[in-house]
């Protein structure tokens, strides 16, 4: 892995150069809410954030995406859309969110490749930013991840004082740095040490911990346990946790039309609402909140590991921060592990 440093003074230049070449998405302050948005100017970036409210998955797996257009009706025609083939970078993505994309990749690949996500994914360079001030409910360390891990990004920047420590983790990353190598300097050993210190400090800030040893197998045994009722009792059935989750990927497909035109649209959906599984016959396999809350936990900690050998949670803590009724995935999973089958 190539290591460099980027003096802070050069950051803006770095971003500007990227803007010249790619669509650049970066955290910006939108009425006191941090969101990843396309920027035209480095000044728009807000680096004073723990993490964005909505995970950057929405840049690749858009909340609303047109699958194709059509002329509606029984004599209609289909008009394919062009996939977004342009190069893009996501600047400032946190290591946890970057990992979530690696998790999502597995869903969108497979027997049927999802061209909408994968086209964008292929053309996206992730310029990560280490998390030095993890927030209250961060728990990436529970998965042996680090708030300063370069594993899932192409380039990782870590704030080590007056400069960023830069770790280049992929060919895409190398290419990027190469094109603007005058902005970067080689990293010294001291810089590397400094990064380690910063990383350690960040890890130490994280106090919350989820016990996940053998959780997949444990869950297999307690599917019917009344424990799930007690968890679900307070659930309001809103979609906040799933919409803000960087690995949730449920979607709905809808046709939208005017009299003359139409589009088949894919929209984020949430398994937390009853309507999600309701069948046209009126039958609902997940009729109660218990079924839905349980499904969410199992999906991340049981089904997903079974299918893809990875827990579909990256420990970003968004669902805990935003749950209106304090359904805390750390707490739920840890307690589930302790439930006697």
């Amino acid at each position, binding site marked *: 892995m190539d290591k460099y440093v980027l003096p802070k003074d050069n950051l803006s230049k770095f971003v500007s150069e990227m803007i010249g070449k790619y669509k650049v998405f970066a955290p910006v302050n939108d009425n006191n809410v941090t969101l990843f948005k396309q920027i035209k100017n480095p000044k728009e970036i807000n680096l004073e954030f723990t993490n964005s409210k909505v995970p950057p998955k929405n840049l690749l797996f858009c909340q609303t995406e047109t699958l194709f257009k059509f002329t509606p*009706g*029984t004599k209609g025609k289909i008009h394919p859309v062009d996939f977004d083939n342009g190069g893009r970078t996501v600047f400032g993505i946190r290591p946890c969110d970057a990992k979530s994309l690696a998790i999502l990749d597995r869903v969108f690949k497979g027997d049927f490749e999802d061209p909408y996500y994968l086209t964008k994914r292929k053309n996206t360079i992730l310029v990560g930013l280490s998390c030095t001030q993890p927030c209250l409910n961060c728990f990436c360390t529970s998965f042996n991840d680090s708030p300063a891990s370069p594993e899932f990004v192409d380039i990782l920047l870590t704030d080590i004082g007056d400069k960023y420590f830069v770790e280049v983790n992929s060919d895409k990353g190398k290419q990027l740095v190469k094109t603007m190598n005058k902005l970067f300097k080689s990293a010294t050993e001291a810089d590397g040490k400094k990064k380690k210190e910063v990383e350690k400090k960040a890890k130490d800030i994280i106090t919350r911990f989820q016990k996940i040893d053998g959780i997949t197998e444990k869950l297999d045994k307690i599917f019917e346990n009344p424990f799930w009722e007690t968890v679900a009792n307070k659930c309001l059935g809103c979609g906040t946790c799933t919409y803000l989750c960087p690995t949730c990927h449920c979607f709905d497909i809808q046709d939208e039309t005017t*009299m*003359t035109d139409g589009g088949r649209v894919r929209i984020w959906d949430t398994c937390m609402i009853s309507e999600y599984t309701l069948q046209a016959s009126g039958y609902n396999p997940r009729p109660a909140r218990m079924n839905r809350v349980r499904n969410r936990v199992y999906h991340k900690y049981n089904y997903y590991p079974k299918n893809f050998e990875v827990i579909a949670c990256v420990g970003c803590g968004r669902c805990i921060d935003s749950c209106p009724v304090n359904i805390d995935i750390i707490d739920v999973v840890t307690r589930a592990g302790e439930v006697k089958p």
Partner: protein
Amino acid sequence: MKIGVYICQCGINIAATVDVEKVVEYAKTLQNVAVSRFYKYMCSDPGQELIKKDIKELKLDRVVVASCSPRMHEPTFRAVLEEMGMNPYYFEMVNIREQCSWVHIDKDKATAKAMYMIAGAVARATYLEPLEKKEVSVIPRALVVGGGISGIQAALEIAEKGFQVYLVERNPSIGGRMAQLDKTFPTLDCSACILTPKMVDAARHPNIELFTYSEIESVDGYIGNFKVKIKKKPRYVDIEKCVGCGACAEACRLHARIPNEFDMSIGKRSAIYVPFPQAVPLKYTVDPNNCLTLKTGKCGDHALCVEACGERDAINFNQKEKIVEVEVGTIVVATGYDLFDPVEKPEYGYEKFDNVITGLEFERIVSASGPTEGHIEINGKEPKKVVFIQCVGSRDKESNEYCSRVCCMYTAKQAHMVKDKIPDADLIVYYTDVRAFGKGFEEFYNRVQDEGVIYRRRELDDPIEVKKNGNKVVVKAKGHPDVDADLVVLATAIIPKKDSKEFSRILNINQSADGFLLEAHPKLRPVDTFTDGIFLAGCCQSPKDIPDAVAQASGAAVRASEPLAAGKVFVEAISAVIDEDLCSGCRVCEELCVYSALEFDEKDKIMKVNDVMCKGCGSCASACPTGAITMRHYDVKQILAQIGGLIR
């Protein structure tokens, strides 16, 4: 889905402003449109045939006709579909005449608008659903409100057809305004002579039940099944016992001291009275506003009328107002009119000078049975110079713009009566235009002129002024010499009944701008109202003379009898439907439905609709917080689609 779109040229009514051919071509491009055609008159037989042929050959699912207002021909085209075995509600009409070609001049714009309107209709048509008309049985009885000549005529005719009729009159006697008139124009028949036999017929008819001195309290229900509450005001006389001898009135302490309304307060009556000698029913009524017993609880040391009645014991001061509920299938409204109060036009000097009277007052004076026994006199003197002023309160933008239709002729008649009784009298009529359009009218007008009556044209813009001049008045009219008159007769306008508004609300029918009750169509449904089962007769709808009122009453009677004879009617298929899965039982709709068409189902804890009671207004649907209520034929899908079409 196959939609047929038919565009009517309506001769040139539409085609002159809307490029019909262009619209046809455009319609063809719309989704689901299988055929689009135009024709000169879509509503004509060949036009209808065109549609029928396509329905058959192309197996159309929906039909859209763009022509005149659906209020004109929607039923026509629905019938076409029905005839072809289609559900009539698969029809959608586009109003490109009243709301397009007639109101726009710019051909391009009107054409464009017609296209939009058709696009909206086509979009909506896709979502139309079949509806079944609901059949309800009809209570074979009718209600006639108002016991004037129109009401009597309507009641008699319905009764003659074998149906029971309730005839409700607010005064103590039926007869109405006609009973107050002396002679009728232009034939000069004695009004009472031709009316009273009819009154008696009505009273005697086995199928007619009279409710005199009664008013309509409320009307609920719908065609075939109206529930009517009638308020019987207390007469304080037991009509079973009263034989109409009049001994009580003679005995009354206030005998001949109370102005008699029937005589326009020129004559006097007692506190217990019949309005006029030929009253039907000939039963006495105590006037609660004047009777000492009722007003003060004390009438001398005892009530003289009770004493006079003696053993008959017909007087009962303890009578109370009674509400009677009747159920009827149809209703004829014949509530008549009021007269314009000339006090509102002070320039005529009415009420300021005794010499100025109204036409109806004159009728009472000239009537042989009136307070003066037919002697025309003013302050005890026969007038030698009489002036008639027409259009008092009519044809006048400040009061009533319309023409009251009868004044020209009754003025002519009254002039004739003066000439008849006081041959040497000088008569001057101030007229705006003499409208003598009826049978025998012009001839009568000519006759009166030949009798020496002077007609002077007045300009409404230059008000006539009546001023005092000693015992006489002077009539000043621009362009004419002043006239010193002994008597001035004002032809006051016919105006809607004072309580028309309240009454129209009770019946849930409309008023037109002038305040008269509104017919469903001025030409084609002149006796119907917009509320099925309620019909209009006489002057409540517009000013009329007697023959017109009687003719309309006959018409209303026929219309009102039709459902009674059929025994069943079809009511509006448009009603609310409740999605039971969505209804949360909040009962908001129950609260706001005027027709009590929504009932709470205690078992399922949701609302249920009574289809027959529901009138389809849709207020519940827009208030339903869960969107559980939809309106058949005006459901959300249809409306949203139509919006989409209109602004595509």
